[in-house]
């Protein structure tokens, strides 16, 4: 009897031990276990950890394990990367965040291997992804037409939204503003009618944690504030690259913003208030409206419920512009400059690209997004569902996932449904509201320039942008008048080389996205 039991125990153990391997044999990338060195340093704080459960699982499945060689002392990912390149000891894989321009600069110089052929022959899943999204492939490539890195591809549409104190609207008997004129009325009402009820005119109708979010107001006069993930970026209109801080609509927009600023509708200290803006202004019950990230901003309703009773800070649809257009300029980017590349000294490029490809398979994608089955999530009707312990923990879900090696910016395709599961109710409502209309506009995914083009850009652009921002701030603050200075502004831009920069931008753009 005992023998039978021990034999069945042994059998069970053997089956349990070998089942995953048997079931996912097709994911194996190499027969002999292979270790690759990786330098992976991101967000100034995280370094690849050989002991991450996700890494271990991936090693089990593919036969490839990664060994970190990045410094644990560095507090700057960019600096760590630069030193790595300077030292010449480039490992098998190099990755991190905000590296696209560097990959595309040093790749053509020989630091990284071009991936196009490797993908064509050995990475069917990546190939399939790029076949479906040819624009993303174009956007990621370097000026010589080669792809040097596998990017981190976010999923999900919206990023920031317009938020307003619905409870103040209710108190004043107003509706969420539908167009720019109503917006003006609402902000004025917030300023003058004392919605926080303390008898003092201390309300700050429109505030912004990051002052470029103030410039989102420009879309109300059919201007733009940026076309990229970052502030002050270029945008594309009718196949042409342009910059938002030029043009008639910009002038009209700025003069209106200046007027609103003067009337006290915009936070007077918007330029210096800084990272604590939401806590300060919402926490002290003086902030009325902003444009900021869905999830985090909605969270204040919960965290401030005691401090500010009745607070109802929720998303509302972007107001229509003067021409009747309703757009949400900010979207989640489709292509991040994060990801990983193959170092030129790598002796196993084929296995490496297959390993990269693993993350685009169904299992790999799930591993990268959700973690380990049975630990972080369970499969319910074939869809991963986070366990209750994960969703109800003190630590935010994404922090928990980073701690095990999931959701890190390796080259993978994110899955929005992971985020949806722990986004708070109010944010989800807001997102649904935004999805109900056609609000998004095409994103400008950047260009890769040849060394000559880059030189022109480097030479002129920084000074041009500096000048633009100087004038912009002066106009908003009222120490300058945009109408009066408009002609000299444009003349100066030309003198600073604006046309030259736009020329190389468009040449690069046509080359990159053309055909």
């Amino acid at each position: 009897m005992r023998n039978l039991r021990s034999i069945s125990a042994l059998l069970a153990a053997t089956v349990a031990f070998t089942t995953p391997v048997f079931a996912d044999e097709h994911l194996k990338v190499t027969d002999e276990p292979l270790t690759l060195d990786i330098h992976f340093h991101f967000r100034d704080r995280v370094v690849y950890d050989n002991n991450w459960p996700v890494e271990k699982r991936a090693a089990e499945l593919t036969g490839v394990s990664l060994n970190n060689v990045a410094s644990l002392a560095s507090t700057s990912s960019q600096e760590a990367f630069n030193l790595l390149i300077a030292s010449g000891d480039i490992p098998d894989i190099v990755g991190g965040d905000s590296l696209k321009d560097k990959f595309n600069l040093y790749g053509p110089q020989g630091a990284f291997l071009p991936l196009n052929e490797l993908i064509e022959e050995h990475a069917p899943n990546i190939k399939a992804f790029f076949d479906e999204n040819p624009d993303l492939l174009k956007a990621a490539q370097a000026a010589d037409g080669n792809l040097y890195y596998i990017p981190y591809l976010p999923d999900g549409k919206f990023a920031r939204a317009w938020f307003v104190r619905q409870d103040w609207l209710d108190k004043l008997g107003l509706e969420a503003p539908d167009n720019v004129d109503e917006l003006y009325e609402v902000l004025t009402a917030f300023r003058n009618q004392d919605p926080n009820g303390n008898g003092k005119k201390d309300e700050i109708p429109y505030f912004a944690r990051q002052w470029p979010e103030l410039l989102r107001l420009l879309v109300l006069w059919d201007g733009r504030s940026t076309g990229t993930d970052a502030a002050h970026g270029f945008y594309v209109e009718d196949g042409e690259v342009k910059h938002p801080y030029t043009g008639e609509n910009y002038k009209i927009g700025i003069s209106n913003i200046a007027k609103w600023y003067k009337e006290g509708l915009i936070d007077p200290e918007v330029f210096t208030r800084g990272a604590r803006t939401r806590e300060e202004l919402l926490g002290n019950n003086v902030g009325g409206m902003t444009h900021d990230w869905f999830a985090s901003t909605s969270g204040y309703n919960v965290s401030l419920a005691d401090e500010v009773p009745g607070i109802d800070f929720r998303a509302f649809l972007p107001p229509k512009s003067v021409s009747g257009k309703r757009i949400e300029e900010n979207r989640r980017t489709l292509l991040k400059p994060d990801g990983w590349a193959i170092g030129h000294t790598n002796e196993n490029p084929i296995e490496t690209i297959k390993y990269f490809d693993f993350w685009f398979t169904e299992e790999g994608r799930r591993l990268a997004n959700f973690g380990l089955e049975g630990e972080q999530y369970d499969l319910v009707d074939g869809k991963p569902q986070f366990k209750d312990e994960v969703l109800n923990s003190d630590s935010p879900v994404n922090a928990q996932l980073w701690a095990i090696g999931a959701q890190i910016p390796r080259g993978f395709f994110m899955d929005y449904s992971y985020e949806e599961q722990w986004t708070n109710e109010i944010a989800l409502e807001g997102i649904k509201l935004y999805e109900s209309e056609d609000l998004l506009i095409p994103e400008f995914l950047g260009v890769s320039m040849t060394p000559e083009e880059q030189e022109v850009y480097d030479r002129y652009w920084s000074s041009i942008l500096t000048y633009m921002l100087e004038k912009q701030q002066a106009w908003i603050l009222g120490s300058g008048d945009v109408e009066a200075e408009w002609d000299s502004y444009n003349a100066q831009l030309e003198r600073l080389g604006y046309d030259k920069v736009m020329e190389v931008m468009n040449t690069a753009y046509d080359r990159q996205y053309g055909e």
Partner: protein
Amino acid sequence: MSMRETVGPATEELVAEAKESQRDRFRRRAVWLGDHMRREWQIYLMLLPVLIWFVVFLYKPMYGLQIAFKDYSIFRGVAGSPWIGFEHFQTLFGNDQFLRAIKNTFIISSLSLLVGFPVPIILALMFNEIRNERYKRTAQTIVYLPHFISLVIIAGIVISVFSPSTGVINLALQKLGFEPIYFLTRPEWFRPIFIGTGIWQEAGFQSIVYLAAIAGVNPSLYESAVVDGASRWQMMWKITLPSILPTIIIMLIIRIGNLLEVGFELIILLYQPATYQTGDVINSFIYRQGLQGAQYDLAAAAGLFNAVVAFILVMAANTISRRVSKTSLW
């Protein structure tokens, strides 16, 4: 008889003597050197480790100064990057904003020197006049604290002190009947605020050098002055200050050498596009340029420009000082 024969033994002797004395001189020098080394070898031994240190750690990598003249790629390295001569300098000097940055750097630095240089000295002198040891020691410790507080905090404090709505300065202004001023967006206020912050932060720490120098003054000088009936004030002027003058001069020369070095960290934290016109300095300008992609070469060119100008200033100051006061850096 031929001319040659007239170059007779006398001349030959002269020539031989000349050569002899040349060799003599050389031999005498060598002997003197040998003697000198035999006597003074210990000094050279003491100097050697430091010199080796400088060569190994600071002089050896100085080939990197070339980066200012190259189209530098970190990957290709200094040797592998092409030489482009003065192109970076042309780029910089062709840029009005860079020229403006130079102007701002110079103005901020010289004002800082004019107003700020005496402050630690005065502070040290004032400390010197305090009789109560405990008060003196405590105060000294406190005033040197801001040096240790990270610039982010200091900037945060400055921003809130000058805030138009809640800052103490504006509250005081309003009490006096004035309108509040958004100081940190006004170009005319940037320099005073920045310079003032710098002085306030560093005065205590910088006074330490002078306190040490004052401590080295021979006390018998004071004793005889007391006997002569001098007041505290006179003693300070006639004894203390002159005694620490060499230290002051050295510090002044070094400070002059730092005329183009306005640290960018605090600038970046305090400036706004609206105050670039008075607040943008060389280092903050380069910082913004560099953000466009680790432009080490451009930064190196600006740095080299800084260093050369600074060094010329220092050499001038040093030479003047050497002639006038016999104190100098070298």
